């Protein structure tokens, strides 16, 4: 039993942290963007990703033959926690699900075309799984892909494609066989985001930043850009999630919010008395501190399970995601309750406490218990796979 990083891991964590302090940039790293900080959605942030690439911090866990270093995934976990702690863009879909899926299932053309670009941060991806009728029920994708001469013809719609408004390439799940049982009817495609048949419509959110819906009008995709085997799309999607053991929902932003709140409470006064002496405030801070420590414990639990290399830590990550996302919302609510009437001033207002950080975060975290598998989906997974209870719907 060991709750510390190994000396080497610790050294790496410190190296990354020091480097991020050195390379701090207010435009690139802005905590007020909350969960959207992870996206490399501006020239400045893309330049930052290239710096990460130059440090050889992209694809560390990839096989050597594809430019990786074949080191433990825990380093990518350490890297992403450090990046999110500093509100910097994170190593995401490219190095993660897309790169790893291409390595295992992509044809040589796709490997040659994309893997080097991913490692050098020259390409940004958008992932298109969700659809109006395929939310929690991901396998229910309806986007139609018809076989035509030399390729595929895609028609339909995607929803919640976070990066569509700035990405270069689109990683898309589509239904290649309307007749087959739905899990065997999906396939994966890669499409240039500037394809004339794609129409990206922005969906502004109360998290300030935007997500998108994307409409497909006879989008032709050459055979070469079908990823892996036809009809194996859903399996590849699930497998990729299992491969992505380490770079999931990070804890640092929540820990960061708790610290920001504590620091603010320590110096704030109400009616000329230190706010930190208020019994209600003290209880709330104690509860937030404790629950944050539990979230940390649950993340330790899934990281250790992932390191063990045994079966994917599905249960551990479900428990972690379930507990941490609801804590994340609770912290924002509690922060506003502590700030009282001054908590109602909007994010970005100079006169608001912490420039309205928590007013904004209260909105930005609203979706955390829904996106990436809702709390109810996580509970179903825990109930069935961990407790061995029967299907409950």
């Amino acid at each position, binding site marked *: 039993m060991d709750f510390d990083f190994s000396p080497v891991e610790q050294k790496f964590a410190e190296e990354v942290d020091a480097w991020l302090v050195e390379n701090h940039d207010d435009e690139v790293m802005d905590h007020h963007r909350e969960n959207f900080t992870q996206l490399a959605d501006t020239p400045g942030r893309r330049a930052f990703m290239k710096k990460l690439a130059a440090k050889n911090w992209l694809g560390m866990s990839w096989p050597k033959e594809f430019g990786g270093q074949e080191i433990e995934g825990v380093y990518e976990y350490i890297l992403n926690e450090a990046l999110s702690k500093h509100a910097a863009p994170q190593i995401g879909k490219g190095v993660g699900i897309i790169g790893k899926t291409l390595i295992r299932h992509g044809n040589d053309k796709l490997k040659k075309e994309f893997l080097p670009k991913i490692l050098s941060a020259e390409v940004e991806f958008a992932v298109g799984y*969700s659809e109006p*009728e395929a*939310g*929690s*029920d991901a396998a*229910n994708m309806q986007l139609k892909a018809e076989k035509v001469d030399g390729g595929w013809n895609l028609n339909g719609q995607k*929803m*919640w494609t976070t990066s569509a408004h700035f990405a270069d390439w689109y990683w898309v799940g589509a239904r290649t066989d309307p007749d087959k049982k739905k899990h065997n009817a999906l396939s994966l495609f890669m499409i240039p985001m500037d394809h004339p048949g794609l129409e990206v419509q922005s*969906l*502004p*959110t*109360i*998290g300030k930043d935007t*997500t998108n819906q994307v409409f497909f009008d006879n989008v032709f995709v050459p055979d070469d850009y079908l990823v892996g085997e036809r009809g194996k799309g859903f399996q590849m999607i699930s497998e990729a999630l299992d491969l992505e053991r380490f770079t999931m929902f990070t804890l640092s932003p929540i820990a960061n919010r708790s610290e920001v709140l504590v620091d603010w409470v320590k110096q*704030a*006064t*109400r*009616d000329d008395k230190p706010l930190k002496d208020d019994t*209600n405030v003290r209880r709330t801070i104690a509860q937030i501190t404790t629950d944050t420590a539990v979230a940390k414990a649950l993340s330790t639990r899934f990281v250790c399970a992932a390191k063990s290399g045994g079966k994917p830590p599905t249960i551990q990550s479900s428990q972690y995601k379930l507990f941490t996302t609801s804590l994340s*919302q609770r912290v924002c*609510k509690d922060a*506003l*309750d502590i*700030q*009282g*009437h*001054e*908590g*109602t*001033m*909007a994010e*970005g*207002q100079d*006169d*608001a406490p912490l420039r309205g950080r928590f*007013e904004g975060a*209260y*909105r930005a975290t*609203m*979706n955390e*218990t*829904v*996106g990436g598998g*809702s*709390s*109810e989906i996580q*509970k179903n997974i825990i109930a069935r796979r961990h407790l061995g209870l029967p299907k*409950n*719907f």
Partner: protein
Amino acid sequence: MDLDLSEEQQMVIDMTKGMLEEYSTVDVVRTMEDDPKGYPDVLWKQMSELGLNGLLIPESYGGGGLTLVEGAFVYEEFGRSMAPTPHFVSCVMSAGVLLEAGSDAQKDTWLSKIASGDAILTTAWLEPSRGFGEVGVALQAKSEGNEFVLSGRKQSVPYAGAADRLIVLARTDDGVDLFLVDPNAAGITQKQILSQGREPQFQIDFEGVRVNEGDRIGAAGSGWATWNSVMLQGVTLLAAQAIGGADRCLKETVEYANQRIQFDKPLGAFQSLSHYMADASTTIDGGRVLVHEAAWNHAQGRPLTRFGPMAKLFCCETYRETTRVCAQIWGGVAFTIEYDQQMFFRRAKQLQLSWWDTPYLEELIAADVLD
């Protein structure tokens, strides 16, 4: 013991509901968000014509002279429609303060104008880094001859941009006093500060603002008692507003849960989700009766000391929690500006934090029970 509505009460509700459905549509509410004025003239005109602005003002001043019970019915509709109006600050708080402690001259000057909607008054109460209690009022009013000189900062003053007068809570040698102040008086600077609920709120700086003694409301040092007693009525109406918002939020969610299919079933067929909604409906229906009981007690001349705070405490938590679980049921779309859920989500939290928040209300109730 009965919860039946009189014909007149039913009429007030139907009329209010009908008018708001026409003049306070979601589009109207959206366009008014962050607007410095913050309310549409046509809506305000309708409210005046239907007598809503004078609802609680005595007939002698051109009002309807109705009770807090009818007020609660109207405020539930305000909450349901998210009506963007200065009604609360002008027709409830300012009118209430004047009725409670104003001189005949002050009442004659303002009450009929408030009732007719021709004048809008608002209240300048809260201050930076200060709480809801009497000690929170720090803005200085120094007595100089037959004038008072006001210096300090007020925060979160609603609709100040449209106000003909501010009712300012200030600290004098006698304690807390209330003053009628012209927002255009020399030494006053206003700045809009955007808020979570997106209604217009202003930060107002007072630098040596001179106010005539005659513009003090009530006897010297009586300001806080007046304010507190009007607040008890105010929070009862805000509790009704919270119920209206929560009720609509839940109804729209139930509708969605019946249509939206996942895993080949409507969302409402998933037990956990349906239980969230059953719990929400129970607190909403219970909270509504609590508000009515509070208002009815006041109409009977009984004290609101405990009932008012209990109603605000419970109904605002009900509203907030309802918007949380509803967002959970809607899923991703609740997160988009395009859908209306986010409008309730933001307003519910702001309402809970404003006009006495949870700890302050709890302390008021505890004091009434224990001390």
